[in-house]
């Protein structure tokens, strides 16, 4: 608490009549945290890369779909391994060429990041919305609603999630696709989002339910009730602004989890498939004999970039949490 002296404080008050909201305070605290700020820049960098991928590859002059193994056969052996050392890194192909069909790794990584982040972001948004709606409803309404939402959460948490993912992906995809056309990429994307969302919202909902339950006991909610506030208003004006903190903290932890989970699915071959570039699909390529036996350079591009991204995001998450809640030890 910043203690405050009434008589003296008046002079200063004239200068800063606007109070600083908790959000602003958090922002000030966050800005002081160097690790957090650097991590934030790294994370923003990745999102920028994703956003600007088409532009960058245009400037760079290649796209991630050109089969260089057929365009430039002299660069490859007959099994599709780049002949030059270090995965064929050269002034022309900055990150080398992908063993197999010989895609350009640089543009593929750009687009891979773009697609992965897009999907994960969408899952996060869907999850957050569901989490808010169900979590807050269960916490605030209590009783039957709470009971059933909690049971559903328990039930879904008992799901072997990965197993469910791989089992349901083909089903979900088949719901959308006409047998004539190629499975459009967006269908896979939607299916990925849907499947991850389906088993992804529970922990957030649970946390928000807890937060709401705790908030419901807070006296300012009672104060609103005593004034005759309808439930809608209480949720909107009193509860929602207060779940923003856990929401933000949780989302910063959730998003990298979704990124890795999405990559895991593509790695298993049930997510995004060739030739659509995707982080996870690159891992799946990286784990082929071709790469592991011949030249492991390729492996490092998706690997290192993902580690940097996840570490930065996790550090950012820690900083956000610290900024909101300076008590917790780090």
């Amino acid at each position: 608490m910043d203690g405050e002296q009434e008589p003296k404080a008046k002079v200063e008050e004239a200068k800063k009549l606007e109070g600083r909201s908790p959000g602003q305070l958090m922002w000030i605290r966050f800005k002081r945290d160097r690790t957090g700020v650097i991590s934030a820049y790294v994370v923003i960098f990745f999102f920028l890369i994703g956003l600007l991928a088409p532009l960058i590859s245009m400037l760079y002059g290649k796209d991630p779909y050109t089969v260089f193994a057929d365009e430039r056969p002299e660069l490859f052996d007959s099994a599709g391994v780049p002949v030059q050392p270090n995965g064929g890194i050269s002034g022309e192909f900055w990150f080398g060429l992908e063993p197999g069909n010989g895609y350009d790794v640089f543009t593929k990584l750009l687009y891979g990041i773009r697609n992965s982040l897009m999907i994960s972001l969408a899952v996060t948004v869907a999850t957050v919305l569901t989490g808010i709606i169900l979590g807050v409803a269960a916490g605030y309404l209590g009783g039957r609603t709470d009971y059933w939402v909690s049971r559903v959460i328990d039930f879904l948490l008992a799901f072997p999630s990965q197993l469910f993912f791989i089992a349901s992906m083909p089903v979900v995809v088949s719901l959308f696709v006409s047998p004539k056309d190629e499975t459009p990429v967006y269908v896979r994307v939607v299916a990925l989002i849907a499947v991850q969302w389906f088993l992804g919202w529970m922990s957030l909902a649970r946390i928000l339910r807890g937060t709401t339950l705790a908030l419901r006991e807070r006296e300012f909610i009672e104060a609103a009730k005593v004034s005759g506030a309808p439930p809608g208003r209480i949720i909107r004006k009193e509860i929602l602004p207060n779940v923003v903190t856990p929401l933000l903290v949780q989302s910063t932890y959730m998003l990298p989890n979704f990124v890795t989970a999405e990559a895991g699915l593509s790695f298993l071959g049930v997510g995004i498939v060739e030739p659509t570039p995707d982080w996870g699909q690159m891992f799946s390529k990286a784990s082929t004999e071709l790469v592991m036996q011949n030249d492991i350079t390729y492996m490092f591009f998706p690997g290192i970039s993902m580690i940097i991204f996840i570490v930065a995001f996790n550090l950012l998450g820690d900083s956000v949490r610290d900024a909101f809640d300076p008590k917790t030890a780090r």
Partner: protein
Amino acid sequence: MKEDLVLPAPREATPESPGEPLLVAENLTKHFPIKGGFPIRRTVGAVQAVDGIDLTVHVGESFGLVGESGCGKSTTGRLITRLLEPTDGKILYRGQDITHAGRKQLAPIRSEIQMIFQDPYSSLNPRQTVGTIISGPMEINGINPPGGREKRVRELLEIVGLNPEHYNRFPHEFSGGQRQRIGVARALALEPKLIVADEPVSALDVSIQAQVVNLLQKVQDELGIAFLFIAHDLAVVRHFSQRVAVMYLGKVIEVGDRESIYTRPRHPYTHALLSAVPEVDVTGDGEGRRERIRLAGDVPSPIAPPSGCRFRTRCWKAQDKCAAEAPPLVQISGNRDGHLTACHFPEEPTIEAREEDIVLDPALAALEESD
């Protein structure tokens, strides 16, 4: 447990409390169910938080409610503001039954019954500015004071002794006492007739407490607002309330005007309570030493309260009758008008020291004997 005795008319006006009865609670009861059991969850018991109490708060008066932790004071307050649904009994506000009124039915009187809370930290939404917090109730009830809500809020801030410039500040920028003032301003925003104040000062430092007590007193005097003032600090209640009820384990065991309760208590528990209050001897004359009563143990659990008189397990006068029969809350002989006591074997109406201290606590007794 239900009070099945004929009740004395609680609306009887006493000299100290002029005016109409504003709010009347009859046989007010709240039992919180305890869930449990196997294999199917069901109600296996109940916390008898409030178990059939009768209260009357008159227009413009301050009614104090004291008692130990867990005796049901807050529950009573929240029943009266209709934050909780009573299990049994009746609440009449200006003669109108609001016991089970829904949110819509309550709307017209919502603005007349307001509440002030104990915890200055949790009673204000940390994400709203002071202005939003205070104008909230007006907005909800569609009140548009002349000159606009903002002007009214600034006025209110002034009334509670805060700088009107604080309009755009957030609660965390205030100290505990100031927050409590914000809480008062919020309660005043609707120009209520009754304010339920649930331990409004117990979380504050002594040096700040008085600021808030004085403010409330001013509000009560100047605006004629009635208070249901809940506190466990007997001194504060004495200072603020014209009439006082003492609760024990979900029951009112004694009620009366301030004078009667503090100087002529009849219930043994009231005696014990008063004797336990540590006093500062500022004058140093030591005259009129008060009695010393040391009860044994804590308040029993409200889940399975003792039969008959609930205080009997800690009472030095308890007899078989106390276990068999719950004493009714009546005006026993020797009491002034409006001073009701629920006791089979009441004490003398004095707080003077007795010949021998009553020490029920075995350890204390042992230690004192060994001296």
